[in-house]
């Protein structure tokens, strides 16, 4: 290689203006984001990690207490209870919601008249489901004098037991509320179904495959990436579920703590009892749980998600 060639290569190295021409412009465009990233996310992440090893309570200075917060977790029965409540909610609510979403997406997939109207109608609960208004409604629908008991009365079952006031059924009502908001995964499924090439169905039909076989051999495998995507999202989101359990239980966690969702417990510890050190530790446990579940999900996906190359 001649010197001239080397010089030419050197001139083309990443230090030439072409490779990094935009630093100043980037700083201008990213200014707000950089400020937010430092002051409102990265700083707080570090602070939260530090606080989780302290007894900070907003009034006094934080004292380093080592692993005491995490040791407390081991014996904190309310925490254990909240984990059970949240896991039941996720394990029943997420598959339940996705099954309903998938079933309706399949019904709506073919060139059905009024498809857009059905889609909008089924989506509406997703739009409203997170609101306080719907949580208020749920309180009254499942209350002792509520709508559900009134309907049971019509078929001869007379009861004034509140579904929300009873520890055995309270969580069920919130799971039902979660399943009720099946509209958004349904829309994602519909988009996924549209990606499946028609030719596949045509070829399968020509070969004599019936509707069930076509579903099992074409629709389901090609939809697995979407199912996986919905599953990961739904698990992450439902661990953060807060409003409904808070409103329905009046912030208390419900009868016998049957509605003590993880985030509700975190809120009580951090913002009612002002045990902010412990609340920070709880937040990190939540990150670990969500992270671990997502990792397991990705690992399991090798065995059932079909990726088309």
């Amino acid at each position, binding site marked *: 290689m001649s010197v001239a060639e080397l010089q030419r290569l050197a001139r083309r190295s990443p230090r030439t203006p072409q490779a990094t021409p935009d630093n100043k412009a980037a700083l201008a*465009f990213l200014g707000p984001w950089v400020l937010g990233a430092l002051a409102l996310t990265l700083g707080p*992440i570090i602070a939260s990690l530090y606080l989780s090893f302290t007894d900070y309570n907003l009034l006094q200075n934080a004292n380093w207490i080592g692993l005491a917060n995490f040791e407390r977790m081991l014996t904190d029965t309310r925490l254990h209870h909240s984990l059970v409540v949240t896991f039941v909610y996720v394990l029943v609510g997420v598959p339940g919601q996705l099954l309903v979403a998938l079933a309706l997406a399949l019904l709506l997939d073919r060139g059905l008249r009024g498809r857009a109207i059905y889609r909008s109608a089924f989506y509406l609960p997703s739009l409203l489901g997170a609101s306080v208004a719907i949580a208020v409604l749920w309180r009254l629908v499942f209350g002792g004098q509520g709508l559900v008991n009134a309907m049971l009365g019509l078929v001869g079952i007379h009861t004034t037991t509140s579904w929300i006031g009873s520890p055995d059924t309270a969580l069920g009502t919130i799971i039902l509320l979660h399943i009720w908001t099946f509209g958004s995964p349904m829309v994602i499924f519909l988009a996924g179904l549209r990606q499946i090439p028609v030719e596949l169905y045509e070829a399968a039909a020509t070969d004599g495959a019936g509707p069930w076989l076509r579903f099992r051999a074409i629709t389901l495998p090609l939809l697995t990436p979407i199912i996986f995507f919905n599953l990961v999202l739904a698990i992450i989101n439902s661990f953060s579920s*807060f409003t409904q359990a808070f409103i329905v239980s009046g912030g208390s966690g419900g009868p016998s703590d049957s509605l003590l969702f993880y985030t509700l417990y975190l809120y009580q510890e951090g913002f009612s009892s002002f045990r902010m050190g412990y609340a920070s530790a709880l937040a990190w446990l939540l990150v670990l749980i969500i992270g671990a579940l997502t990792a397991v999900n990705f690992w399991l996906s090798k065995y059932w998600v079909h990726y088309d190359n």
Partner: protein
Amino acid sequence: MTTESTTRSAQHDVAATARTAPPEAAPRSPDGRQVRQALRRGAKHVLLILGVLTTLYPVLWMVVSSLRPDGQIFGNPSLLLTTLHVENYTYGWTALGRPFSAYLLNSALVVIGSIIGNLVSCSMAAYAFARLRFRFQRPAFAYMLITIMLPVHVVIVPQYILWAQAGLVNSFLPLIVPKLLATDAFFIFLMVQFIRGLPRELDEAARIDGAGHGRIFFLIILPLMKPALATTAIFTFIWTWNDFFSQLIYLTDPQLYTVPIALRSFIDAQSTSSFGGMFAMSVVTIVPLVLAFALGQKYLVQGIATTGLK
């Protein structure tokens, strides 16, 4: 979109028909087949309409109940109205410390601030990530993606301490400033994806004509990314309007109560009296959501379908 899918399923139906009636089989008349198909379609519609009614029944019952006198609300699953008890609305409007319009106004302020914040800050950041080359670009982008996955609970305690020390708890700033600083990374990602889909030749042509990044952003990219901006605006609206967690934490002064917090105090204050008023105000708070849905449905559906937003 709909046309596409209609054509597709029309073909699909043809294929299905070809299979159910192979030429060598069945001396059935084509008329019988058509009748059976029509019946099937009819059954499907009946099923779907029942599904829609079941799904929407609780909401419809709430709307109907908001127009009934208290005595008629409970034990009455019917959706038929015999009276129009609008007094619920006038009563509910003034039942709390302040007229309900004050809470609606507070929510509107937070929502508008959040929408402006997200549109401005996220679009700027997205332009930088999608079109500029700069130092630390990869780690910055990776960090941005990580913050999408980060549960808000990890940062909420230190953020609260920060705002408390600044004396700004009980103001709208803790709710709006984070949006002005592009902390809703999901929208940055959405917009980055969108900008990457725009042809680079447009930028390059403008650059040859002497335009700087500011002009390219404002005059070329921004007008082209209207769909992404609309999706961001509508989701910011819905999320902020419904947001309970952070508004509960930062707003304890009744003067500043937003709609979700006001509704919640309704429960505490009225635990047994006037359910009608509570229903009426609940209906009032969902009207803006339904309107936003009706107006922005296209962008909403696109947003969910492409990114999994809720």
